[in-house]
């Protein structure tokens, strides 16, 4: 019955797959079963298992097994080759040309990168990206761990608190950042209502000096729940007996944290830090919706700069902004793939 709801395009794929797999199981002389299989899959009728003696994978020659998998995997591999691998390499190629909209451009060697290295906006965007990521991730680590430890204690209504903490993360990022922009508004923003009410007068939270801290706070607000929930799950998987044994040995709270808790949750912490660092480094919404990189590049980061580059239609230079970040990304992604593969 499941297949029935999947839509026509899918039935084609499923049927093709069924055909292929069945041939491997039953040999070529069984066309009748093929058709029945297709009909059954397409229509969702499922008659009981009456195909006896079907072999399993292991008895087939290797090349046949590989052939079957092509159908299962082919779709996604083609998608990713077109949508990720090709653009990835194409982007690198473009960054060495003076391509603009409408012209293919010519190979200009490192000219774009030399131009960028002298461009104040680019220098600023690198420094800003480092500051933003460094501060936000440190805050998430410290508060994320702190809050997770707090919630791991014997508190009442833990489910309620967990649900509450998920709120900023469940909220679409663009909604969260639009809301923070509203909070920071000089006229009508909540923080200024409070600051005027307390007698501090109007504060321009989006000025050159304060824009970066403001963006950092908003990015932290939206991002920390992911860390808390992941850390909490990790904390709860640390075996309770270890704490009991340590308590019998007279270990202090700090010793228990250092020797049991921390090693227990370290793998999760490392994965979360790495994944979140990749995403935070490349985040666009937080800057774009709150400050658009301003005032005077005070919050310019490299994704926003690349976006401006695309708007000027000088595609070669714009691509070079992203490509300049590739070494950092590739390093992190390489470590990330290794970590996640270990699973």
């Amino acid at each position, binding site marked *: 019955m499941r*297949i029935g709801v999947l839509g026509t395009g899918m039935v084609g794929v499923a049927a093709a797959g069924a055909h292929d797999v069945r041939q491997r199981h039953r040999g070529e002389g069984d066309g009748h079963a093929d058709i029945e299989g297709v009909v059954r899959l397409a229509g969702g009728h499922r008659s009981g298992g009456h195909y006896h003696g079907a072999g399993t994978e292991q008895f087939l020659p290797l090349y046949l097994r590989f052939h079957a998998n092509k159908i299962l995997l082919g779709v996604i591999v083609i998608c990713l080759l077109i949508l990720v691998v090709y653009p990835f390499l194409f982007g690198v190629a473009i960054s060495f040309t003076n391509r603009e909209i409408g012209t293919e451009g010519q190979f200009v060697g490192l000219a774009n990168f030399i131009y960028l290295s002298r461009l104040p906006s680019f220098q600023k965007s690198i420094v800003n990206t480092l500051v933003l990521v460094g501060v936000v991730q440190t805050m998430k680590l410290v508060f994320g761990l702190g809050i997770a430890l707090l919630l791991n204690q014997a*508190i009442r209504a833990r489910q309620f608190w967990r649900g509450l903490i998920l709120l900023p993360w469940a909220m679409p990022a663009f909604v969260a950042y639009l809301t923070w922009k509203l909070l920071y508004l000089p006229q009508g923003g909540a923080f200024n209502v409070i600051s005027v009410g307390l007698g501090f007068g109007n504060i321009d939270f989006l000025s050159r000096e304060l824009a970066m801290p403001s963006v950092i706070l908003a990015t932290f607000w939206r991002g920390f729940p992911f860390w808390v929930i992941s850390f909490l799950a990790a904390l709860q998987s640390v075996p309770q007996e270890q704490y009991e044994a340590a308590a019998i040995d007279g270990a202090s709270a700090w010793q228990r944290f250092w020797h049991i808790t921390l090693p227990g949750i370290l793998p999760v912490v490392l994965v979360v830090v790495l994944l979140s660092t990749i995403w935070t480094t490349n985040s666009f919404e937080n800057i774009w919706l709150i400050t658009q990189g301003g005032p005077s590049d005070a919050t310019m980061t490299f994704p926003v700069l690349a976006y401006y580059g695309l708007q000027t239609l000088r595609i070669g230079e714009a691509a070079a902004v992203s490509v300049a970040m590739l070494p950092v990304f590739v390093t992190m992604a390489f470590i990330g793939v290794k970590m996640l593969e270990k699973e």
Partner: protein
Amino acid sequence: MLGKLTLRQKIFSYACLVLLAILILFPIYYMLTVSLKTNRDIYRVPSLLLPNPTLANYAELLGRRGFAVNMRNSLIVAGSATVISVLISCLAAYSLVRLRYRGRTWIGRLILFSYLTPASLLFIPLAVIISRLQLGNTLQGLIFTYLTFAAPLSTWLLMGFFRNVPVDLEEQAMVDGATRLEALFHILLPVIAPGLVAVSVFTFTGAWNELLLALIFTTSPEIRTVPVALQYLITGDVFRWGLIMAGAVVAAVPIMTLYYLSQRFVVQGLAAGAVKA
């Protein structure tokens, strides 16, 4: 760590939690109140309270502003991207988890690498490719580019779920004559139904929330998605924060409801996929 707390520890813990609750809830509260205020109330007499609540912003947004069209676009794009990527991901994840063949590790790595690659590194070449394919300014083009993050994400999460199901069930079915695909669709998928929900919710929210690609690939107002429509309201000449926040509420409520309904599964999904190490 679970032990009896002293009274002082208790007070400290709950004080921290209350502070945290304020930090989380205050922005949301302010968003809601501003969406229920007139322009005059927002700018002339700014206040944290809500003296004269009105639904005027919502009426204007959904009536004159045609926000429903943006909602429809977002639904089409996020829905299609989700259906397509969950379908192809089921097949890919199944193959990667259950079958052994040459090149499997490399395909697994390709998917992981794609999962980690952010849109901000791909959008410039993608812009060139999309315009070459004449898909610029169409919903189809947007759906297509959303597969860059949706397909690897759902494959990666589904692999986690598949791995947790013992292989015996399917083998039993296959001994009875079921084909691999029957085993996948009739045995394995029903078992991981909660996982499928989680993966779909994840993929859907990812696509619903996407701003950068939508900003680049949609130019005419009638095919803008929700995030793009709202960002045009803040970059315009006249700020209408009541209207913007009404839009934010309308955009957030369905997705957050979905999120909370499947929260348990989503967190399970996280544990099975991204976070489990």
